[in-house]
């Protein structure tokens, strides 16, 4: 099994604040890797480093390497747009664009020049919506604004939008934190289905969720990676005391 994402001695600063300290992780292909840890420990920051969306924040500096598909994405000749097409991201709050459902899914195809023929786009839109189990519910209202959907549907749409551009990696930042338990469970089922095709990294502060869906788990604390191992080991027999304290609910 080859490593899909290798994070090597990675550091990140927000201006003067050292938010990630010498992080090392190897994320394996076609499985779900979870990142857990108390709020503010740097989970989102690390996730957002993998598609370089942190670049849009002023004052961010990095040092170290993140290797995706054999190349260091922080090397100078990286094409960030191609990287982001390859590494999709789903955000904490569903953020569909204020345009039609159809246009939301077609957006990535159009901006990346993946397809321009209407029949091809139509087909991809349908396939993507089917993949997130949304098609049957909304096929008759594709022209409606995406903002008319429920929160769960919006989050599914955001996943469909990512799938449409056929990435290899999908990053999810607490994708269920604004959803109710039933919707959360259904999104989790969806993720488990998707891991056969995509390499998935999910940030969550919900330990049960990490335990339910992931194969590997990284535990972070104050910007440092404390422990990274198979999920079963992290939750039952961790090496480090901090991990044990956290997963057994003694802090955080």
């Amino acid at each position, binding site marked *: 099994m080859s490593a899909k994402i290798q994070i090597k001695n990675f550091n990140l600063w927000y201006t003067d604040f050292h938010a990630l300290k010498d992080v090392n992780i190897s994320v394996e292909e076609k499985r779900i890797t979870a990142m857990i840890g108390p709020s503010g420990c740097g989970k989102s920051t690390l996730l957002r480093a993998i*598609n370089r*969306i942190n670049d*849009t924040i002023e004052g961010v500096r990095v040092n170290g390497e993140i290797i995706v598909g054999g190349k260091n994405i922080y090397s100078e000749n990286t094409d960030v747009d191609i990287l*982001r097409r390859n590494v999709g991201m789903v955000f904490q709050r569903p*953020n569909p664009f204020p*345009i039609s459902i159809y246009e939301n899914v077609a*957006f*990535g195809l159009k*901006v990346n020049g993946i397809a321009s023929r209407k029949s091809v786009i139509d087909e991809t839109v349908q396939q993507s919506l089917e993949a997130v189990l949304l098609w049957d519910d909304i096929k008759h209202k594709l022209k409606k604004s995406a903002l008319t959907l429920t929160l769960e549907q919006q989050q599914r749409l955001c996943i469909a939008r990512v799938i449409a*551009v056929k990435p290899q990696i999908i990053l999810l930042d607490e994708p269920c934190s604004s959803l109710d338990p039933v919707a959360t469970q259904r999104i989790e089922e969806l993720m488990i289905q998707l891991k056969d095709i995509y390499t998935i990294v999910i940030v969550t502060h919900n330990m049960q969720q990490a335990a339910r869906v992931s194969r590997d788990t990284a535990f972070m604390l104050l910007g440092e990676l404390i422990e990274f191992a198979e999920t079963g080991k992290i939750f039952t027999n961790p090496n480090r005391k901090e991990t044990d304290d956290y997963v057994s609910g003694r802090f955080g």
Partner: protein
Amino acid sequence: MKRKIDSIIEAIIFVCGILSIIFVALIFGFLLKEGFAFFKEFGVIGFITGDLWYPTSDPPKFGILPLIIGSLFVTAGACVIAVPIGVMSALYISEVAPKGVRDVLKSFVELMAAIPSVVIGFVGMVTLVPLVRTIFDIPTGLTAFSGSIMLAFMAMPTIITISEDAIRSVPWSYKEGALALGATKWQTLHRIVLRAAMPGIIAAIMLGIGRVVGETMAVMMITGNAAQIPYSIFEPVRTMTATIAAEMGETVRGGMHYRSLFAIGLVLFLITFIVNFTADLFLGKTKK
């Protein structure tokens, strides 16, 4: 005591509110009265479709088609110039310009808004008019085109400031979502940001153009004031507002000419009303 002050203030506010309504009603009533008195004698069709405006000849000719077309040319020209430049500037100021440049540009735009229209008209007359004449090699620079440029200049501060607000209030999460899908900065701007800000931008355009539709002084100084049907924007024209302003002083109170100017006012009011109404419809639609 406090109670009393409260109720006095309330009463004052109430009176002010009522007064503004009464004023509008009075103005409108007056416009209607004089306008209709004119229409009763002269007829609506001949007024609107007549192509000659000789209000003082004998018999007088009251055809305002040249004036309507004049207003249309000048305003449409102003839109064509001001809308793209204004919206692009707003986009540049809010999304592209580095902080220092942005602050300078913003104060510059505010300054632009503060220039009185007579001054703009005057400066335009001595600089723009000769320039238009030489560049296009036409007999006179006093043309609809020159008027359009001036009006565009006056509409732009409103369009820029309000569009900029609309663009800057587009949630960051939309931009992030677009960038994360591999869109370039420019694709994000024009496919998502501009679209999300569109209701606000349309409101900005309506307000900006609304500000200059009724503009009189600058237009009167620059468009040549010829009440004839123009065949291109490089000919002198006269607008409806300019006609009212220029001729009101010379009319006999209660006479046909006097009343015809009120009738022009009524037509102007109707046109503005229709434009605003359509804009409202459109805005309501895009908001949903």
